[in-house]
C-alpha cells in the first residue's frame, strides 16, 4: 500500500470515528451548554409576580448593586464559607494524621468517618434540627446536664452561622480527612528517613516536611469544598430557611426564594450567575495556589 493510500485510509477512519462519536459529543455539550445559555438569557428578562415577561437588558445586574439582600447574602455566604472551610481543613488534616498513625483501627475508624458524608444532606439537616431544638433537643440536654446554660443554636441570629458551620464541618471533615490521608500515604518515605537520621523532632518533621508536601493535596480538598460551600443550600433550607430574620440567608437561599417563592426567575437567574462567577473565581484562585505549592 502506498503512503498516500495509507494516509487516505487513516483520514477516512478518523472521519468515521468523528461522525460516530459526534451525536454523543453534541448531546453532552448541549446538556451542559443549554442550561447555562438559558440562564444567561433569563438573566436579561424580568418576570412580574404574575409571570409576565419582558426584556430588561442588564437591569437585573444593576439592581444587584443596590439590593441590600444581595450584599447581606454575599456577606453571609462568605462568612459561612470561610468559617466552615478553615474548620474542615484544620480538623481534616488532624484527623488524617490520626488515621495515618492509628493503623490497628484502620477499617473501623475509616468506616465510621465515612458515614457522615454518605448521609444525604436533607437527612443530616433533619437530624441536626431535632438535636439542636432548644426545647426538645439533645444538645441543650447535654449542656444542662453538665451545668452549662442552654443555647438557642439555630434560633439565635448571632449563633446561627457558627452552628450551621459546625453541622457542615461534622458532615464533611471526614471527606477532607480521607483526601489528605491519600496524600499522606503517597509521601516519599526517603525524606522521613533522612529527617530521622538528622535528628528532626516530630513537630519539626511535620512543619518542615509533612505540611509543605501535603499542601497540593490540601489545596485540592479546599477546591472541592469551596465549590460545595459557596453553593451551600440544603442543610440551611432544612434547618432555618435563611432565618432567623435574614441571619442565614445565603446567596443561594436568597436566589431560590426570589425564583421559586416570589416567581422572579429573571432576577433569580442574575443572582445565580453572579454566584457561579464567585465560585469560578474561588476555584481559579485555588488552582493558581495549587500551581504555586506543587512539588
Amino acid at each position, binding site marked *: 500500500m502506498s503512503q498516500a493510500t495509507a494516509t487516505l485510509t487513516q483520514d477516512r477512519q478518523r472521519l468515521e470515528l468523528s461522525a460516530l462519536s459526534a451525536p454523543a459529543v453534541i448531546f453532552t455539550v448541549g446538556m451542559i451548554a443549554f442550561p447555562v445559555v438559558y440562564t444567561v438569557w433569563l438573566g436579561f428578562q424580568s418576570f412580574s409576580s404574575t409571570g409576565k415577561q419582558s426584556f430588561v437588558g442588564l437591569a437585573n445586574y444593576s439592581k444587584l448593586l443596590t439590593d441590600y439582600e444581595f450584599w447581606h447574602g454575599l456577606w453571609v455566604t462568605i462568612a459561612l464559607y470561610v468559617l466552615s472551610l478553615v474548620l474542615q481543613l484544620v480538623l481534616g488534616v488532624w484527623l488524617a494524621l490520626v488515621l495515618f498513625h492509628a493503623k490497628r483501627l484502620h477499617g473501623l475508624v475509616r468506616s465510621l468517618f465515612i458515614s457522615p458524608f454518605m448521609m444525604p444532606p436533607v437527612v443530616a439537616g433533619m437530624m441536626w434540627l431535632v438535636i439542636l431544638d432548644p*426545647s426538645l433537643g439533645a444538645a441543650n440536654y447535654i449542656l444542662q446536664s453538665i451545668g452549662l446554660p*442552654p443555647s438557642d443554636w439555630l434560633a439565635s441570629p448571632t449563633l446561627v452561622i457558627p452552628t450551621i458551620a459546625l453541622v457542615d464541618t461534622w458532615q464533611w471533615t471526614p471527606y477532607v480527612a480521607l483526601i489528605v490521608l491519600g496524600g499522606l500515604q503517597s509521601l516519599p518515605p526517603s525524606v522521613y528517613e533522612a529527617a530521622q537520621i538528622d535528628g528532626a523532632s516530630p513537630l519539626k518533621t511535620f512543619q518542615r516536611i509533612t505540611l509543605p508536601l501535603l499542601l497540593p493535596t490540601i489545596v485540592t480538598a479546599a477546591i472541592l469544598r469551596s465549590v460545595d460551600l459557596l453553593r451551600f443550600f440544603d442543610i440551611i433550607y432544612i434547618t432555618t*430557611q435563611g*432565618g432567623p*430574620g*435574614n441571619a442565614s440567608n445565603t446567596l443561594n437561599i436568597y436566589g431560590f426564594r426570589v*425564583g*421559586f417563592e*416570589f416567581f422572579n426567575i429573571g432576577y433569580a437567574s442574575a443572582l445565580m450567575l453572579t454566584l457561579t462567577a464567585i465560585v469560578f473565581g474561588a476555584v481559579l484562585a485555588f488552582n493558581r495556589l495549587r500551581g504555586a505549592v506543587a512539588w
Partner: protein
Amino acid sequence: MTAKTLMAHVAIPILAAATLSQAHGADFNWKKFQGKTITFLANSNPISQALLTQKADFEKLTGMTLKVDTYQEQQMRQRLVTVMNAHSDEVDVFMTLPSREGEQFAAAGWYADLTPMTKNVAGNYDFAGLSQALLKAGTFNGKLTSMPMNIEGPILYYRTDILKKCGVEVPKTIKDVQAAAKKLKACDSSITPFVSRGLKPAVAYTFSNMLHNIGGSYMANGKSNLCSPKGKEALETYSGLLRDYGPPGVVNYSFPQISALYRSGRSALSFESSNELRTVMDGGARLKDTGLAPFPAGEAGQVPTAIGWGLTISAHSKQQEAAWYFVQWATSPEIQKRMALQGIAPPRPAVAKDPEYRKWIDEAPVRKEWQAALDVLATKGSSEVGYPIVANPQSREFIGQAVQDLILKQKTVDQACADADKALDALIAQK
C-alpha cells in the same frame, strides 16, 4: 358453581358497583373518559393523604388512571412554577391555596376557569352545599378557579390538666391568653406556657387572626397599615407572647415543631391549625387532657382565619374535561365525608350533620370541641392571610420579619412596623 361462589363472583361486584354509582350519582356517565390518564400534582399533607386513600374508588368508577406526583409543599410549588412557566400540559390537576397564591396564579393565567364545568356534575354533587365563603375565596375576576377540599384555621389547643393545676380558666379573649400565660409561667417552670408560629414565612397564618380579632387591617387607603395603632398592638401582643412565654428558638417554629412540642406534653397553650388535630393526637398521649377552643376574641370580637386547600385544573391541561371528573369526584359529598372520617374538616356543612360523621365526632370529647371550633371558622371566618395583593407570598415575609424583629428585640415596634410598611408599600405598588 355453588350459590356461595355465584354470590362472590357476580352478586357482590354488581352490588358494589350499584352502591358506588349510587354514592356518586347514577345519572351521570362517569365512564366517559375511560382509559385516559390524569396527572395530579399533590402537596404531601394530611388532606391529599386522606384523599388518595380513595384513589382506587376513582379509578374503578371512571376507568381512568390517576397518576399522582406528590411533593412537600414548597417543592410542589417549585415543580409547578417550572411546569407552568414552560406552558407544559404535564400536570392536569394541582392543589392550591387560594388565600396565598390565588391572586398571583389567577393573574398569571395558570388556573382553568371552572365556572362552566360546575354545570356538568352528577345529580348528587350538591354544588350549593359547598362552603360559599371558600368558593368566594377561590373566585378571581368572576372566575371560579378551585374547588374547596377542606376548611381549616388556627384554633387554641390547651392542656386541661395543667390549666386546672394552675387555677387558670380557659382563655376567652386575647387578654385572657396573656394573663393565663403569665400565671402558667409562674406555676410550672417546666412547661412552655404558650406557643404559636414564629418562623418568618409561617407567622402570617396565626398573626392574621390576632390582627383581625384586635380590630386591625393589613391595608388602608391602598397603603400598608401595620403602623396603625391596632397594627402595632397586634405586633406587640403576638411577639410579646412568644418572646415572654414561648419556647426558646420559637423563631424557627412552624406547625411541625408546635405539634411536636404540644404532643410531647411540653406546652400548655398552643395556637395551631385545626388540621393538626390528627398529628397532635398521634400516639394518644394528648387524647384525654386536651381541650380545643376557637381563637380567643379581641376588641373586634372573633374574626377567625378560615382557609382551605383547593383542587384546580391547569390552564395548560389538554384534557380539562376529564380532569374535571377527578376534581368533581374528589370534592363530592361522599368523598368529603370519607375524608372527614379521617380528620379532614369538610368544606360542606351538610357533612357535619351526617350520622356516620356525627358518630365519629361523638366518640371523643375533643372531637366535639374540634367541630365546635370549626363551626365558628365556617360562620365567621376570613380568608385574609397576609396582604390581599398579587405578591401575597412575599408580603408574608415582611409580616414575619416584623414579628421576628420584635421577638429577638432587634427593633422597637415603631422601627419594625415602619420598615415593614415601607417594604410592603413597594410590594403593593408592583403590578
